[in-house]
């Protein structure tokens, strides 16, 4: 009996000892050791992160993860995706379950400062909007007083909605679900009059409704929703990699480097392009990857413009215009610091 107690004590001490040494090794080393990037995405939002018929993920957020894999491994396919609900996403990143969260997540001050996260940039400037049935005859969000509103829990959307109705002296009845699919189903079943989320999301969700033509997205945009990838705080190297993969894709578009012409651009004598493609300087080494990292990103994934057009642009069912997401040189907000 005493022997049993003793072994229990020793065992407990061993467990406690292990708990005390939770490692926080550099994310890059962990990623290299396991051979792939674990990327947190949505459970299915067309154009941002959604699996296709064959089970392959595609979307703007997915392409950013592929870009990171291309930069680290030279192989855009070295990614594994974790579909996460809005509620699960930050815990998954904090606990180390995923390496990067690229899941149409709004950059806010509290998330940046209180959750132990760092936002590595903005890969889509969005704003919250409303979708209603055409048959309601509503053409402005200001006519929505008294409506039932479907919304997903754990989002900035839930708070913006409250603020907007309050500011305009209107009432509403929130119907809150945890999973995107549940919100979609409830709205489709007419449980709510209004669906609110980021406008890009509304366009994407509308495609999946039983009768997409019967719904309109109202013109009002009630909030700023800068969506971008997030990483854990305290690992500057990994933070830099994620940040500069995004900037490299923006700079490539600005310089006119595309996945199609990346190989011929290798012969370019423009010093900007030479630095981008790793012909000059050692920018890759500085962040712990090979010097042709940006070349791999552009060659295998494409520049920002290509990614945008491929996933949400005019040729896709979403048909979202570049708008504020155009480069700064074309009147938009997408602006990357120079690569030098």
């Amino acid at each position, binding site marked *: 009996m*005493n022997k049993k*107690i*003793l072994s*229990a*004590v020793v065992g*407990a*001490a061993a*467990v*406690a000892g292990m*708990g*005390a040494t*939770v490692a*926080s090794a550099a994310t890059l080393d962990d990623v290299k050791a396991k051979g792939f990037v674990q990327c947190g995405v949505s459970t299915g939002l067309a154009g941002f992160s959604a699996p296709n018929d064959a089970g392959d993920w595609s979307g703007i957020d997915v392409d950013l993860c592929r870009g990171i894999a291309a930069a680290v491994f030279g192989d855009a396919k070295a990614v594994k995706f974790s579909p996460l609900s*809005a*509620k699960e996403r*930050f*815990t998954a990143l*904090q606990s180390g379950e995923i390496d990067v969260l690229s899941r149409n997540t709004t950059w806010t001050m*509290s*998330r940046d*400062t*209180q*959750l*132990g996260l760092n936002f590595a940039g903005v890969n889509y400037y969005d704003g919250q909007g409303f979708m209603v049935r055409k048959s*309601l005859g509503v053409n402005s969000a200001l006519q*929505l*007083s*008294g*409506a*039932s509103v479907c919304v997903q*829990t*754990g*989002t900035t959307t*839930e*708070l913006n*909605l*409250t*603020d907007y109705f*309050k500011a305009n002296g209107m009432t*509403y*009845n*929130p*119907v*809150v*679900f*945890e999973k995107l699919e*549940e919100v979609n*189903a*409830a709205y489709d*079943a*007419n*449980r709510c*009059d209004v669906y609110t989320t980021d406008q890009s999301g509304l366009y994407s969700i509308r495609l999946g409704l039983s009768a997409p033509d019967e719904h309109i997205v109202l013109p009002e945009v009630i909030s700023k929703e800068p969506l971008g990838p997030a990483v*854990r*705080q*305290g690992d500057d190297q990994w933070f830099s990699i994620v940040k500069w993969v995004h900037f490299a894709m923006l700079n490539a578009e600005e310089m006119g480097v595309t996945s199609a012409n990346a190989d011929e651009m290798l012969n370019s004598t423009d010093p900007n392009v030479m630095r981008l493609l790793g012909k000059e300087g050692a920018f890759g080494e500085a962040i712990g990857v090979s010097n042709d990292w940006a070349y791999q990103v552009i060659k295998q994934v494409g520049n920002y413009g290509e990614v945008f057009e491929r996933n949400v642009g005019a040729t896709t069912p979403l048909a979202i215009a570049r708008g504020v997401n155009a480069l700064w040189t074309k009147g938009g907000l997408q602006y990357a610091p120079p690569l030098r």
Partner: protein
Amino acid sequence: MAHQEGVPAGADDSGRVSLMNDPKARGLVFQALLIIAVIAMVYLGVSNAVANLARAGIASGFGFFSDRAGFDIGQTIIPYTNDSTYLRAFFVGLLNTMVVAVIGIFFATIIGFIVGLARLSKNYLVQKFATVYVETLRNIPLLLQLLFWYKAVLSILPSPREAARETGVEVAFSINNRGLYLPRVIAEDGSSLIFYALAVAIVAWFVIGRWAKKRQIDTGQQFPVFLTGLALVIVLPTLVFFVTGRPLSLEYASLQGFNMVGGWIIQPEFMALLLGLSLYTASFIAEIVRAGILAVSHGQTEAAFALGIRPNLTSRLVIVPQAMRVIIPPLTSQFLNLTKNSSLAVAIGYPDLVSVFGGTVLNQTGQAVEVISITMLVYLALSLMTSAFMNWFNSSVALVER
């Protein structure tokens, strides 16, 4: 070392066994060591979590409770607005959980008793129906049943605009995919007298019951307690209602804009959860009731009949009291299950504790460790309270052995 004969090894010259070899002392030492190890492990775990949270730059502590919540909740029992604190949001969720649990337990017990008795019925149809009910409902996972009630039954009802005839027309009763609409009683000045009358009637019922029982024991004469009591409860408040000038009025729902406004609204999420929980748990309670009744030996019935007691009195006075002793302990587990199962509400959007506090509050504050621990403690406390109450109830019906 040479041992003296007759003295155990390790004993000193005085003849007493040394502490090293005293089994009692050794036992105490190991127990103390174990307690120290457990405390050390808990301390290590907590301080490790706190240190890791601090290093990862994640806010910790319970200060968030007094911050403004900033979000709305669809269904609240206590007054709540988006200006209320997270603490109040916590109570809103807690009360929503408790309401659905208490009402669910109420219906589950009633349905369970009826079905359990029906399973023992001599009527073929009734007995088979009860069997089918039990075997179907207890063998389908609860989550599927909840989704069935919510998505397959309640959400295919017409929308309020389709259900209502015209804007502004008041209806006494309406069921649509936004909920069940019933008239609401509006209390005006002087209405409190009616509630006092009701209270007086209930107390009178109780007093008459005590008196009738005493009289029956003394004289053997019976008194129709139930009918008298029922008449009192109905007549007395009605009388006061008319005497005080009808201070109660009904508010009806009518279609205004998007939704029905006014009246008493029971939302579909609540209905689905209540239906699912009570029907599912009732199937287990039915089996417990059946087992309890079958556990009473048939000799008891025969003995009662031999004394000339009528069949319905036999079951009420002889069978059921004895069956209760077998029924109560497993019934407690079912009540606990129902309370804990109510956390499945999150799947159908009912704002219970897990959805409001473990969902929205967790996300808006980002303090997962604190929020989840509190949520777990709350369920633990609710269960322990239910269990304590049922243990007390059990001891009051248990066989008193002399």
